């Protein structure tokens, strides 16, 4: 018998249709921005709405990114995710109140330090709660979606009630730190400072997650685990530990999103995370299960569309995101860039 030939790879040039199909998800955001510009007409209003939409999208992405990883890697539908958003917001706001001398000081350094400490506290707190949630509530129901929905909704209710017990049932209002109030004028547009910060933080989280998932061994293990967990174990990696790590990271990201959302809305309630869950699930589903890139694009689409439509036709804004989800699922039933196929 002769040895196998040394194949040389040959690649045919993709047709324009194929290339457009591959690039289509990435093109949706710029296309929507252009459509928004044409529909709104006034450049200053368009710029303000676009920055607002991007900021909202980035915050939704931060909250959704953890859920899509947990969904993709662990096949767990975690309705309790919303509670981590609320818990992160309450913990972060508590730290900001505690550091009110810093947040009220006319010092950018002290203001940013207070926000960073609030974020750190929120992420550690929700990470720890996430660890306990995985061990006590999620672990017994791996593999059963129906039980996961029932049990994690139960966990959500318990955690929300715990917030009522600890922080009270009333909504809590807050002011942003001094340096994050007000707007920057750009031409005839007023761009809120905090929204610009939210865009920067969201981008940083996206880049960091991509780097971790694409350039590190733990990222490789997570990506491989999404495809074939059994083989990852057979190669010597403790997938359960990876599961727990991803769950903790997802919970901590929800906590971060909670702080960012609290500073955006300037009011927090125990149910704020639960209220966000519909948008977050829309983002995870249209992005494609397990896909960070898909969740990022999906979140930006949701944020931009909501802002444009609310300006153009406020009544339609209520159904715009459901309409977006319907349109994308009709186009790509598995979502834009699924890592795992929906069962």
């Amino acid at each position, binding site marked *: *018998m*002769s*040895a*196998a*030939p*040394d*194949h*040389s*790879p040959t690649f045919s040039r993709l047709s324009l249709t194929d290339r457009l199909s591959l690039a289509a998800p990435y093109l949706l955001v710029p296309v929507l921005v252009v459509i928004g510009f044409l529909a709104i007409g006034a450049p200053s209003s368009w710029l303000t709405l676009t920055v607002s939409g991007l900021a909202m999208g980035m915050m939704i992405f931060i909250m959704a990114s953890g859920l899509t990883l947990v969904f993709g890697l662990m096949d767990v539908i975690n309705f309790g995710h919303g509670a981590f958003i609320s818990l992160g917001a309450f913990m972060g706001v508590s730290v900001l109140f505690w550091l009110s001398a810093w947040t009220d000081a006319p010092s950018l350094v002290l203001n940013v330090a207070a926000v960073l400490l609030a974020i750190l506290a929120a992420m550690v707190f929700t990470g720890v709660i996430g660890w306990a949630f995985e061990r006590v509530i999620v672990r017994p129901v791996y593999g059963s979606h129906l039980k996961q929905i029932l049990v994690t909704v139960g966990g959500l209710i318990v955690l929300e009630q715990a917030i009522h017990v600890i922080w009270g049932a009333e909504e809590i209002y807050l002011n942003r730190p001094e340096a994050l109030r007000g707007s920057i004028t750009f031409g005839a547009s007023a761009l809120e400072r905090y929204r610009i910060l939210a865009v920067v933080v969201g981008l940083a989280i996206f880049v960091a997650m991509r780097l971790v998932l694409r350039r590190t*061994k733990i990222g*490789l*293990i997570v*990506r*491989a685990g999404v*495809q*074939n967990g*059994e*083989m*990852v*174990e*057979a*190669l*010597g*990696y*403790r*997938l359960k530990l990876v599961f727990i790590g991803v769950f903790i990271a997802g919970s901590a990201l929800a906590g971060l999103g909670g702080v960012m959302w609290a500073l955006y809305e300037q009011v927090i309630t125990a149910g704020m995370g639960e209220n966000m869950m519909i948008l977050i699930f829309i983002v995870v589903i249209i992005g494609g299960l397990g896909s960070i890139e898909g969740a990022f694009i999906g979140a930006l689409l949701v944020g931009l569309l909501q802002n444009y439509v609310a300006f153009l036709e406020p009544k339609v804004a209520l159904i715009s995101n459901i309409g977006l989800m319907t349109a994308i699922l009709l186009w790509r039933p598995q979502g834009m860039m699924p*890592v795992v196929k929906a069962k």
Partner: protein
Amino acid sequence: MSEPILQLDGVVTDIGRYHILKGVTLDVPRGQVTMLLGRNGVGKTTTLRTIMGLWRAKAGRILLEGQDMAPVPVSSRAALGIGFVPEDMGIFSDLTVEENMILATRSGPLDPARRDWLFAAFPPLRTFWRSEAGNLSGGQKQMLSIARAMAEERRLYLIDEPTKGLAPAIVSTMVGALRELKAQGASILMVEQNLSVARALGDRAAVMDDGAVVWAGAMAELSADPALQERLMGLSVEAH
């Protein structure tokens, strides 16, 4: 003969309601290739998966160099030095060939000398190093699956039907690479349906039927006795 590297003693495995392994007893000698033969559905793949811990043995003992594997989880079995090539190849299709190999090296980066040896054994891996593994052909995926098990020196290799469905030229490449591995003194337990391959590589043979090992001995003895083959497996080496 030195102590076997792997010993199975009365291993019983159920999958759901089905009794698959009904008391497998088998010794895998150190530094030799043991071929696990038998008709379809007699429990060969289940035996490998049970050794790997992917199915839990309900009864019996599995000893790796005298260590009882019962309490050892799958990941730790791999860490103990068992390299596993599953029947479905277990390729991570969204990862590149390089990334698949990186995952297979637990002790650090892939040794350049070992990588070059694997490139020589499986030339397509060099060609498609940065390509997604999902784009490889069936034979190339099988090469990657075996190369992944060979990315580091292992105490024992469990290889499930490495030549299944492959063209003769690719089978030849596989046999060449596995011969090199064997020449390095590797201990291998391999499931194989292709008796020509079994004869080319095997030192020992164990034939399974109905969830148990019904014959074990030298591969040469089995090869030389068509009547024995006929009786054990219903076919003959000479027919291949």
